[in-house]
Structure formats: C-alpha cells, structure tokens
C-alpha cells in the first residue's frame, strides 16, 4: 500500500470553483478508484486558486483480483460438425486471453454456450494510474469549462503543471497538453520556481514554507485571524459576511491583512451602500465602530506579504475612492428625481416577455395588495402604508445605483424614500417588500411590507406557472423555488390565518385583466408547489414527510399547518398516539361512504349505541380544539425552517378525544352499519363521518402510522 498524491496546477481558478472543485475531485476520484477496483483508504483533497490536489491514503499496489466466467458463442456456433472450434470460438478465446482448448461448455436457460474462465485484476496500480489520473483532469465536473491554445481537453482554467506521485514513484500522467513531473510550485511571487516534493506527507508543510496554505481550513483560519487582528489594532470590528469570507479565502494562497482608509465625506452615503461597494467591487472587509456604524476604514486581504504595505495600502485606498466617487455620483444623480419619477422607468425594464415589464408587474401588485390586506384583515395603519408605498414600489430598480449594484434593491428604495421625506413606515415597507433577498435572509418586518412581498412573489409564481414554466427535476432557471420558499416563510412568520390557497387566489386578482389567465388548475399547481417548499422547510425542522402531508391536508394556512405538524409530532411521541390512530382508522373506515354534507339525525337512531356516540362528539371536539389551541398558545409564530423555540406539550385535550373510544367501539362492535334500510344506513354512516371529521381537525391522520 502507498499514498497517492496528484496535484493539478492551474492558472488562477475562479474563487467560487476552488471549494467546489475540491469536492468534485474527491467524489470523482472515489468513483474512478472503485471502478478500477483499487482498494484504498481515505480520499481527501486540498485546494487553492492555483491548484487542486488529491490525496488518497493506503492505495493497494495491485488491482483487486477477481475470478469471472465470461460467456461466448452458443455451442452451435462455437463448434463445427467435427466438434472443432470455429473461428467464432477461437476469436472469443483470443479476446479473453485464453487458449481455445481452455473454453468450457455450460448449459444455460437458453441452451449450451461456451465460457471462458478467467482471472482478472492483479495489474500493478502504477500502470493503471496514468490513465486514471488523466481521466480525473478530463472529466472533473465544472459548470463552465474553457479551452486554451490548441489543447483539446477543456478545463476550468488552463492546466499549468501536474504533480503525480504514488509512494516513491512519479506517475507519468499526460493530459491537457501537460506531462506530469515530481515538482510543485510555491507562491507565484514569494516562492517562484519549481519545488521538488520530497515525500507526500511533507507536501502541506513544504508548501507552507513556500507561502502557500494549501489546506483550505488552515487558510480560512489564517484569514479570519489576520482580519480580526488588523481590526483590533484599529479598535474596530469587522463586518463578517460569510460569502465574502469564502471568496477572500479562495482568492489567496497566503492571506495578509492590510488596513486602509477612505475620505470621511463618503460616510454621508448609507451604510449599506458603503459596505456593498467595498464588498462587491473590491472584496474589502468593511469595519464598524463601537456604535455599529460603518467606519471610514476597511481591510483588504493581500495575496502577497509585502515588505512595505504602504504601496499596497495606497493602491487599495485610491481604487476604493474611485468606486465611492461613483456611488456618490449615483446617489446625487438619483436624488435628482423622486421615486415616483423613477417609477416611470419601470416600463423599460423587462420582467418576463409574456408577462410584460416591471411596470406591468407592479400594476398587478397594486391591484392585488389591497385585496390581500382586506382578506388578511390587515390593520388600518398597514393599509394606509400600502396606499402610499404601492405607487413607488420597486421604483428603485430604475435608479442608477441599483442598476450598478443590483443587490442594493430595496435598501435604496428605503434610502431614497427617506431622503425625499416619505414617512419612515412607508420607506421601510418598500425595503420589506423585496425581502427576503437571499433564501435565508431577513423577512419583511412589518405587515404592510409582508403583504407587498407576498404579492410580488405570488405574482411571479402564478405568472410563470400560467406560462407552463414550472421547475422540473433539479432545474429551476427562474428561481421559483426560492420565491415559493419566501412566500411560505412570510406567511408563517406573520402568522397569517388565511389559507395558503386563498393568499394565492387573492394575489391572482392582479391578473384579471391579463396578460395570462390564472385558472383553478394554475392555482392548484402553484399552491401545491408552495406546499412542497413548506414541506422542505418543515423537514429542516425535523418533521417527517408523512406528518407534513397529514398537517397540510384540507387547505389550511401555512402557519396552522406548521403548528399542526409540530402538534402531531408531539402527540406521536406520546404513548397514547397508537390509540388515537386506531380510533381514527375505525371511524374513517366506512366514513367515505357517507353522503356528503348530511348530519346524523338523532330522531333516526334505532340502536342504543348510536345516541351515546353522538352525545360524546361535542366533548371530543372540545378536546381537539383544546389541543389545537394549546399548540397555538405554546407556539408563537416562528421562522419556518428554524423551528419553534420548544415543542408543544399537548396537555389534557387528548384524554378528552380518546374518551370517544368506548362509545365508538360499542357502536362498531354491536351495530351493523350497512343495513338494508337506506335511511338508517345513511344516518349511521353520517354519524361515523362526523366522528372522523372531528378527529380529522388534527390532520389527515390516515397519512400517519409508523412515523413520528
């Protein structure tokens, strides 16, 4: 057994591919080693912007041996009349590497065939590796590959060198126009030139000496440490942005923090603008003062530890100054118009070609949002905010700042609205209305903004579904899953009691004048799609798929479905749950046969067991309501996906529900339901149906059983 090390040296990889490529390399190598029947230990990998390195421990020296019996032609074809092997048999034998005399005959279901018994495997690993490793370079998955020169093998960026070592052997890999050698390269500037890798276990340390932190975990720690220490020397705190940190770590091999300053007059720009300009354009880490406001300083992470940082610092400062200058230019230019004036520009911004422009979209939201406010019973204050916010909703899309820095949408609406004297709650609603910006991002804080955001997302979902543009499989080119997830989270967090289907139906009113028709089929499909997102958010809270199905039955609101799901899970953890399920199953067994919408008539009761069951129903219903109420009381609205603070304790309601057992058992054991008299039969079925319906308020319990 020996260790395998394979470094693919590249021209600088995109930062987002460094981590992805490392994972892909581990997965692909594992797959190829398995296919090649090479036994091995742990598969791991390192990655920097200039290299992806695979390490496999304890690789067997030879391919695993295996005995196989391979089928050849049928005996009719394999032997001539004299019983001598035909050309077909001789050819088969040669192909399998055995002599024709070694072929054996065996009976199969389809007649007699010749077979070759062969032993495969045992080839030296060192002979298999050149092809196997070249295949890793050829086939490493990446969203986008490129070509260079006249090399025929595409890769993410040009392959610059290859290092392939198996134990003490250099493996002669040749692919993508490069022949492997036994050398790696250090930092591009601080340790130029080739470095002989002495032994595989020393690879990481040898590169560290050459100013390359090849282990991404170590490099991340070093980056965080460098930023933290640099911020501390300034008495400031870094603004930690995980995406930025990921990017910085994979933009460097040797992280070195350098603090810079910018002109304090730019502090007049909103904090979000300052932070976004620093992060988006320059990958600088913004710094905050003790009061939380953005300070006039930042940290740049250099890839090179220079002797005199003043040159780098003044470069960072100059370029940031140019960027902030532009931001200031946009800020001043945009404020030359009101948001109402910017809103005119929305007609020039396409939403979707069959659904019109952004102006068309906002017009639909303008129609739908007041209706949703009405259906939700929104406060008078929220309705007033909506009235003022709707004419300028998403108008910031047409401002230069948002055109330049799209991630500032919403933030700029608020900032420009405040700057022109729009009341703060209205300004906040404009920002809330595009939230959540990222899948896990903050939700609209206030009711009016939540209504705007819900209408906006629903408009998109309904429109795209009406056009038949639904996601299929893992493909979701329009990001509809994100919109559905956002809608579900908003409805849950704001504890809307309006059924989800009604939320969507109300939002659909924006489409009454076209351009597409939202029929019941579209509405159903869209509703189901959002429920799927609810299910996956609840799955993150540990709720099983059957429980979700039980809890979402009967078109509830998102909030009540989520509570029911947690209630059912809590009930399922209790000893009495099987009893509840049995109760439900017994009642539900015949209930489907009952005529719709007919209540049992006590005057038609004939058997003595009927009236007691009927009389027990109100108490059971109170029990069910008590359970639901206790879940409601114990579970204040929460962020879907993160789970409630604590699971609900169901309380004594269940006991009252289970009190149905005796009267129900007696009724079912002693009374024949399916009697000949149609009136009596219908009445008994109606009694069972009502019993089932009382229990079904807890959810579609038929979905459960066997799952918590």
């Amino acid at each position, binding site marked *: 057994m020996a260790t395998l090390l394979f470094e693919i040296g590249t021209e600088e990889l995109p*930062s987002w591919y460094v981590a992805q490529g490392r994972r892909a390399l581990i997965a692909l190598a594992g797959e190829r080693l398995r296919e090649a029947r090479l036994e091995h230990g742990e598969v791991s990998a390192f990655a920097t912007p200039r290299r992806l390195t695979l390490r496999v421990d304890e690789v067997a020296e030879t391919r695993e041996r295996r005995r196989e019996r391979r089928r050849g032609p049928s005996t009719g074809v394999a032997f001539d009349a004299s019983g001598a092997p035909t050309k077909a048999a001789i050819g088969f034998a040669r192909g399998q590497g055995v002599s024709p005399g070694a072929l054996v005959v065996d009976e199969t279901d389809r007649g007699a065939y010749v077979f070759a018994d062969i032993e495969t495997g045992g080839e030296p690993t060192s002979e298999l590796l050149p092809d196997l490793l070249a295949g890793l370079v050829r086939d490493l998955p990446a969203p986008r590959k490129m070509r260079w020169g006249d090399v025929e093998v595409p890769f993410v960026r040009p392959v610059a060198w290859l290092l392939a070592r198996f134990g003490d052997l250099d493996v002669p890999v040749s692919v993508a126009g490069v022949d492997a050698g036994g050398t790696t390269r250090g930092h591009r500037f601080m340790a130029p030139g080739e470095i002989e890798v002495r032994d595989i276990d020393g690879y990481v340390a040898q590169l560290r000496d050459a100013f390359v932190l090849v282990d991404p975990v170590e490099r991340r720690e070093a980056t965080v440490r460098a930023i933290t220490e640099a911020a501390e020397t300034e008495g400031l705190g870094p603004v930690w942005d995980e995406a930025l940190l990921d990017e910085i770590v994979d933009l*460097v091999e040797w992280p070195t923090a350098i603090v810079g300053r910018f002109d304090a007059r730019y502090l007049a720009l909103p904090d979000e603008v300052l932070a976004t300009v620093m992060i988006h354009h320059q990958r600088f880490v913004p710094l905050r003062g003790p009061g939380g406001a953005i300070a006039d300083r930042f940290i740049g992470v250099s890839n090179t530890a220079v*002797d005199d940082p003043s040159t780098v610092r003044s470069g960072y400062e100059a370029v940031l100054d140019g960027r902030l200058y532009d931001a200031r230019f946009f800020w001043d230019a945009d404020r030359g118009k009101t948001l109402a004036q910017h809103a005119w520009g929305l007609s020039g911004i396409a939403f979707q070609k069959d659904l019109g422009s952004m102006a068309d979209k906002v017009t639909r939201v303008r129609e739908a949002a007041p209706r949703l406010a009405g259906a939700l019973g929104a406060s008078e204050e929220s309705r007033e905010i909506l009235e003022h916010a709707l004419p300028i909703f998403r108008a910031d899309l047409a401002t230069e700042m948002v055109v330049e820095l799209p991630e500032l949408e919403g933030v700029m609406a608020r900032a420009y609205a405040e700057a022109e004297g729009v009341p703060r709650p209205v300004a906040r609603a404009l920002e809330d209305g595009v939230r959540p910006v990222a899948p896990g991002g903050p939700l609209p804080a206030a009711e009016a903004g939540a209504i705007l955001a819900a209408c906006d997302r629903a408009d998109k979902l309904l429109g795209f579904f009406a056009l038949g543009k639904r996601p299929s499989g893992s493909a979701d080119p329009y990001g509809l899953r994100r919109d559905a997830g956002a809608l579900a989270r908003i409805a849950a967090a704001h504890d809307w009691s309006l059924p989800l289907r009604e939320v969507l139906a109300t939002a659909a009113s924006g489409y009454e004048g076209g351009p597409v028709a939202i029929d019941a089929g579209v509405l159903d499909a869209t509703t189901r799609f959002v429920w799927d997102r609810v299910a996956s958010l609840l799955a993150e809270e540990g709720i099983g798929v059957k429980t979700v199905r039980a809890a979402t039955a009967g078109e509830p609101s998102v909030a009540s479905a989520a509570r029911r799901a947690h209630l059912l899970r809590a009930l399922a953890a209790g000893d009495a749950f099987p009893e509840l399920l049995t109760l439900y199953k017994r009642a539900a067994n015949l209930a489907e046969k009952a005529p719709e919408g007919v209540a049992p008539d006590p005057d038609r009761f004939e058997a003595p067991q009927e009236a007691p069951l009927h009389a027990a129903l109100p108490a059971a219903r109170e029990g069910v309501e008590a359970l639901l109420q206790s879940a409601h009381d114990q579970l204040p609205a929460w962020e879907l996906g993160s789970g409630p603070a604590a699971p609900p304790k169901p309380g004594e309601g269940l006991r009252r529900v289970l009190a149905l057992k005796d009267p129900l058992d007696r009724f079912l054991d002693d009374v024949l339901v399916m009697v000949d008299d149609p009136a009596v039969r219908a009445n008994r079925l109606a009694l069972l149906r009502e019993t089932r319906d009382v229990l079904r308020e807890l959810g579609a319990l038929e979905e459960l059983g066997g799952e918590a």
Partner: protein
Amino acid sequence: MLFQDVILTLDRFWADQGCLLATPHDSEVGAGTFYPTTFLRSLGPEPWRVAGIAPSRRPTDGRYGDNPYRFQYFYQYQVVLKPSPSDVQDVYLGSLAALGIDATAHDLRFVEDNWESPTLGAWGLGWEVWMDGMEITQFTYFQQVGGQDCRPVSVELTYGLERIAMYLQGVEHGFDIEVAPGVTMRELRRDFEVQHCRYNFEASDPELQRLLFDKYEAEARRLIHDGLIHPGYDFVLKASHAFNLLDARGVLSQTERQGYVQRVRRLAEATASAYLAARSQLADEAA
C-alpha cells in the same frame, strides 16, 4: 515613466515577443476588441501575434473629467496571441516588470472575470489583473467571437494604460499623467473630454443617431452581402458607436436597448461568418 514611454516599453516588449506592432484603427470603437486586427484575426486557424495602442471611446463612462479613473475616451494597450502560449501569464508579468513593476512589492492577482461582448457575439474566460485592488489588465481567452467557436484559442491582453501610468507616476488623476516631458494629459485631453461628455450626455441629437444607426446597419448588411467585408465591418463599428451614443443620452428603454444590442450583434456575426467563408475559399483556391 512618461506615458509615451509606457507605450514605447510595451511596444518594445511585445515586438520582442514576436508581435506585429499595429497602428490604431481609424474609427470609433468601444474597445480594442473591436479592431479588425483583433475581431477578425482571432477567427480561423492562422497563427497571429499583434500588439499596439488602442484608443477607445465609451460615451457612458464619461464623468466630465471629474472621476480620476473614468473617461469616455481612453487608451488601451491591446495584445492578441493566437494560439495562446502556455506561459502567457509569465510573459505578461514580464511586461509589468519591464514597466518597472516589482511583483513582490504589490498585491498582484488574477481575479476571475468572464468577459462578454453582447454586441460582438463574443465571450471568453479569464481574469481582471488586479494590482493593489485596481484592475490594470483584462486577460481573456476567447472562446467565441462573432458567434464562431475559436480554434485555436486566442488570448487577449488589454492594459488600462491610464491606470498603469497613474500608478507609475504616483498621480491621483488621469489628467495629471505626464505624457511627454512637460506635457500632461490635462493639456492634451481635458477640453476634449469635457466637451465630449457634454455632447454625449446633453447635446447629441438622438433622432439623428437613430437615423444614422438605421443607415449604417443597412449599409453594413449590403456590403457584407456583396463580399466587401472590410468596408462592411467599418459600418458595423459606426453603427455600434451610434448605439453607444444613444445609450449615453439615456433615451433607450431597457427593451429598446436590448433590441439595438441584438442588431449590432447580428451584424458582427454576419461579418464573422462572411470573413471565415472568404478565408476558407482562399485556402481552397490555394490548395
């Protein structure tokens, strides 16, 4: 180092690398990529090495000379190497060294930048080269040009000359660059810049530009169709500049803008395929 010495140094450096030194094309272009010596020559199989200064105009980038880095008229230094050599990054870094830039004293980085020119039907993968956070060069492996796959692949290096010169001279505004002894960029370009900004943003006649665009487009089509590819391509460049002027004037809605981009792109694609067809006919005749 004087601005003109930057140019001379790069000329010398790339000439030594076997590049033909090309003179600027005499038509307004948004970038050196539009030059026939880049756009047309990156098509087809023939090896090609060219370098030279490429003055460019981007009307929307004008800031009346107020922004130290942004101008509507600026100088690129354009290098195209076909096929892209395997040591091109090192050679490029050598050109910085020739300019006196010590890589160990700076934060030099190759940061992913996927370049795309919607109007040229061209895209490529590569980097922005950052020096101390400032983009000084666009480094692109062309994958497609004029809608045609590039085989072999050319690499295009586009130096932002003003930025590099500002750095080398330690000045904070592009106008403060010393071009020749005692002559600054301000003297050479300030009035030109401010007046063109006024023209681009305030004074250009949008109706005229729309009309010109239509005429240029029709003329380009006619010429390309008749096999007059080089004159036809000149009209593609003129159409592209008319579109840039309309864009700067702020008179195009997003959808309208998209429409113009498509129209220029179709012209560029027609040029590319006519050029390749003519070249392969030449090759056939020679064979």
